[in-house]
């Protein structure tokens, strides 16, 4: 099936045309048109993804890798074809460097478990930062507690950017085995300087994992140019389905790592005395994989590549600029972070109003935003707040929607703030 959006001309997005690809955007919420500004939590799905998945179930489905029959072979081709698409998306040197997981969280846990316990040695350290999602904190704490790895936390500046001096000081003693950082903060929208991070870490003898859950949605990622060692992202934020994520790892590193989970499909031979492992990447993919979801991810990649990352980035930058300018007109509104490089994610607080109340009132206007701690409790503490609201944008977001959001937000302020 084709990826669609073939007539969208770069660099300007035909947003009206794109919106027609997303059936859910014509729904109403509480009698109002849906204004979906929660794509950073999970993006909506285009009909191309929906149909790729339903077509698989209707016409071409069987288990993969193990059937000798026609249907299994064709399904295996479709499934493995997505590995090629992901490798191209990230510009990986080889398709064998792409491991399918359930999501970013599982991909990070895979590295923490397999690289952390299997390759790193007690006494080494992992560096994270103050602006990480819990998914890039807790697996390393578990590694610390189980394997004697020290966990170090790089500071962020008051502008919400990675403090490179802090990172340098944490790397200075040469004991850091891995630097695991977000490529784009899910709260602040900050895009971290990946090239600089990799360069600094490699100079100190450390490997680098980047959590690209947010970044991969908004910009072209080239793991070869970055020279990053591990890169993770999840399908459902990239307009694909839930249940499918990706770990990119350099081939030599994946080769050196022991399996994460045992079971079918990840083995070479099995006896009661001894088992050998399948080749990379299958060594890390135990059991029947998420076949339908993987094929859905392939359709999502086709979809965003047909639009093009340059127009996507330009569109989201324009929306972000517009939203920041409009939000600046609201009394008592504080945008979290003011990074020079940022994506289409804006978190904010409103003096005298709680984020939950703000979100509920926006919901009554049909506007969906996230409110709470955004799975980043330590960052909230660093910022000196308990919670915030967050608006995040996608390829289907319009300037008119942002205007509606800001107007509704100002209405909420008038009601909530005495």
């Amino acid at each position, binding site marked *: 099936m084709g990826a669609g959006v073939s007539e969208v001309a770069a660099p300007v997005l035909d947003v009206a045309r794109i919106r027609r690809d997303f059936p859910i955007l014509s729904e109403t919420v*509480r*009698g109002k048109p849906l204004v979906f500004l929660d794509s950073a939590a999970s993006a909506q799905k285009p009909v191309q993804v929906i149909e790729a998945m339903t077509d698989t179930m209707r016409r071409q489905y069987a288990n993969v890798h193990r059937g000798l029959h026609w249907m299994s072979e064709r399904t295996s081709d479709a499934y493995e074809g997505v590995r090629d698409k992901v490798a191209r998306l990230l510009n990986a040197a080889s398709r064998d460097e792409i491991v399918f997981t359930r999501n970013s969280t599982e991909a990070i846990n895979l590295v923490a478990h397999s690289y952390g316990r299997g390759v790193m040695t007690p006494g080494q350290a992992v560096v994270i930062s103050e602006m990480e999602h819990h998914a890039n904190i807790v697996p390393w704490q578990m590694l610390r507690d189980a394997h004697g790895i020290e966990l170090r936390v790089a500071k962020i500046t008051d502008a919400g950017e990675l403090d490179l001096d802090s990172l340098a000081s944490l790397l200075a003693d040469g004991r850091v085995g891995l630097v695991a950082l977000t490529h784009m903060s899910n709260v602040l929208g900050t895009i971290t300087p990946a090239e600089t991070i990799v360069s600094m870490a490699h100079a100190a003898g450390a490997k680098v994992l980047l959590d690209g859950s947010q970044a991969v949605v908004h910009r072209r990622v080239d793991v070869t140019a970055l020279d990053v060692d591990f890169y993770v992202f999840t399908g459902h934020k990239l307009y694909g389905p839930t249940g499918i994520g990706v770990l990119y790892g350099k081939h030599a590193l994946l080769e050196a790592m022991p399996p994460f989970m045992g079971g079918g499909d990840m083995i070479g031979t099995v006896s009661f005395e001894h088992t050998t492992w399948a080749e990379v990447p299958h060594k890390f993919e135990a059991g029947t994989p998420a076949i339908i979801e993987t094929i859905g991810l392939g359709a999502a990649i086709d979809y965003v590549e047909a639009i093009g990352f340059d127009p996507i980035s330009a569109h989201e930058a324009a929306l972000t600029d517009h939203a920041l300018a409009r939000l600046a007109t609201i009394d008592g509104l504080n945008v979290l972070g003011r990074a020079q490089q940022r994506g289409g994610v804006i978190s904010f607080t409103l003096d005298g*109003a*709680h*984020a*939950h*109340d703000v979100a*509920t*009132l926006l*919901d*009554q206007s049909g506007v969906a935003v996230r*409110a*709470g*701690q955004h799975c980043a*409790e330590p960052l*909230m503490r660093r910022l000196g707040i*308990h*919670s915030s609201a967050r608006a995040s944008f996608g390829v289907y977001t319009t300037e008119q929607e942002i205007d509606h959001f800001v107007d509704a937000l100002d209405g909420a302020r008038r*009601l*909530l703030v*005495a």
Partner: protein
Amino acid sequence: MSTDATTLYQDWVLARARAPLHAGRIAGGVTGVAENRSCGDSVRFWLKRQDGRVVAARHETEGCAICQASADLIAGLAAGLNEDRLATLWEEACGVLESGVAPAGRQGDAGMLLGVFAGVAEYRARHRCAMLPYQAYEQAARAG
């Protein structure tokens, strides 16, 4: 049933949240705390007993308007009702969360508490905001 802003955020709810009547601490009182990890909200209750009865209740609440109002109303009720009657009222309030309908004719803090719960009933994600204070109260009650 559908509620709008004026139902959920009635003037008296917002007024009570902005200017609570029972905020603060009780020196020497027993205390209990409840937290909502998804949003960082927290409620701490202090209770003072005399002859087995709660004679004073205070709270410190970091939370939304619904949580603030609920905490203040529960604190007001805790000092005036015996614990069994408060527990009965709480069960009634939980029922209102399910039905979305507050019984007619109820006055005072009890009527307002049931009104808060009726207003928030439609918003399942906000139920915890309304319920958090009672968990803190229960903890304090058990502690004493």
